[in-house]
């Protein structure tokens, strides 16, 4: 099992090492948001008084990374399922669970690198680091990434053979979840129905928790809500994922 996980991980990771620049390109959208949107926000008054706009904005971008990354992970699995390469691996004695864990592990490493890179880019802009907060924030982020990655794998498996379901769900779900989470703009001034919609969205709580953690506010109640949301997503993802792999693709 451990060996097989390493095999799957290194299969997935070698192309990243061969073309490391792709790592940066795949961060394109979040980075664009960071620089363009963030600069815009930092000039506008009335945002979270006393703190720089970056302090408010960067955690949101990190969560965004966390949503778009796993999407691509599910997509790469979908392509392999629709082609013949997944079938080929399924005929080998490779452990079924290891196929999922190895892939998720790769997403985990990529996410971590991308998050650290984003933070490093944000520091010169005025983003203040609270070391313990950053560590806790990253930990939360990574758990979310693993959960979402596993969920997107399950979705890819269920979307066979046409793959249509994958697109429908990701397009219908991802954007509303992103917009309603207050990731890019604060929800505080929106109409009541919008705020309620935002509160139901688990991503909102993760974003809030990340903001509190990156500001070093460990005692904030949002940290608890966010952590619960993340753990639920991760457990659900890994459970559904291993089950789908066991049942055969």
């Amino acid at each position, binding site marked *: 099992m451990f060996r097989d996980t390493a095999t799957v991980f*290194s299969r997935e990771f070698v192309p990243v090492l061969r073309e490391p620049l792709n790592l940066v390109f795949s961060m394109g959208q979040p980075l664009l948001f960071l620089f363009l949107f963030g600069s815009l926000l930092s000039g506008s008054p009335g945002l979270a008084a006393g703190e720089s706009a970056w302090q408010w904005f960067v955690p949101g971008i990190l969560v965004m990374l966390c949503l778009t990354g796993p999407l691509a992970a599910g997509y790469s699995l979908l392509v*392999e399922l629709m082609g013949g390469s997944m079938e*080929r691996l399924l005929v080998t004695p490779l452990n079924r669970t290891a196929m999922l864990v190895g892939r998720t592990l790769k997403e985990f490493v990529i996410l971590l690198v991308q998050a650290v890179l984003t933070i490093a880019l944000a520091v010169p802009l005025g983003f203040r680091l609270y070391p313990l907060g950053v560590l806790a924030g990253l930990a939360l982020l990574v758990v979310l990434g693993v959960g979402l990655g596993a969920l997107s794998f399950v979705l890819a498996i269920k979307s066979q053979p046409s793959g249509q379901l994958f697109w429908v769900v990701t397009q219908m779900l991802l954007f509303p979840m992103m917009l309603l989470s207050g990731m890019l703009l604060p929800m505080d001034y929106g109409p009541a129905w919008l705020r309620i919609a935002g509160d139901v969205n688990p991503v909102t709580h993760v974003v809030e928790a990340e903001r509190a953690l990156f500001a070093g506010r460990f005692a904030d109640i949002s940290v608890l809500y966010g952590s619960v949301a993340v753990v639920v997503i991760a457990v659900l993802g890994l459970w559904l994922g291993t089950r789908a792999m066991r049942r055969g693709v």
Partner: protein
Amino acid sequence: MIHTEGLAREFRVRRQTVTAVAGIDLHVEPGELVALLGPNGAGKTTLLRMLTTLLPPTSGSATVAGCDIHSDAGGVRARIGYIGQKNSAGENFRVRDELVTQGRSYGLTRARARERADEVLAQLELEPLAQRKPGTLSGGQRRRVDIALGLIHRPGLLFLDEPSTGLDPQSRASIWEHILRLRREQNMTVVLTTHYLEEADRMAERVVVVDHGRVIADGTAEQLKNDLAGDHLTITTENEPDAGAAATAAARFSDEVAVDGLTVRLRVPRAVRAMPEYLRALEAAGVKAVTADITQPTLDDVFLALTGRSLRDDQAA
């Protein structure tokens, strides 16, 4: 090498049960080269997917390479090679990287997996392509990569699902050359599916004809053609009374004689032997044959004789 009993698989499609494989008993001995021949949708691929543990059967049992497909799927997987209909190499990966991964998947050490990767690259003349990604390869080259992936662990039993479909004649010939040579060198048992009649006819030592999820014929191509279709002699005469006399003379050679106007057609076991004798018999009876022709059957005639349908029609549809 393969023993199945009543192996069957049903699918649920929009609340209807579709039987893809309806109880197949198949026995393949070590060293055989068996072609599963049948129209699209006959159940060949489903059968292969069950034998390779990709799909659990609805009922029935099978032992493959000495291991039960249900209780010891891992054992089956370790002992067989499988080359599916679609290309096996991932698009994002370099050919050699995929080969090393494949070796590792079969439990080889990293060093040994690299060695084997280089060996199969050489065997299939893929060395110049080792660092390329599949997207940049031609159809024939990609198929060779698939074969390399299937052979990395030197399996004793190799399954190929339509190995040459979609390739140009030259690539098809080259793929076959490789398969047959590697089979000799490694003493492999080979089971493949095809809907190319000529391919099954020329390459396979044993042809298993599958239709509607059942085995409807099993034997060498020669046997099947002799038993089920047979050679035909056709002659034409100058007038109808002559045709009648020719048909009478034909009764000595065959019990399947058909007259159609001036044409007489009879089925015989060996046409090349029967033709001179028949012509002499006609001369003795004072009948003048204007034309004489021999037709030898193809596997399509076998399929036609068995099902009343032509495999070629099916392909055109």
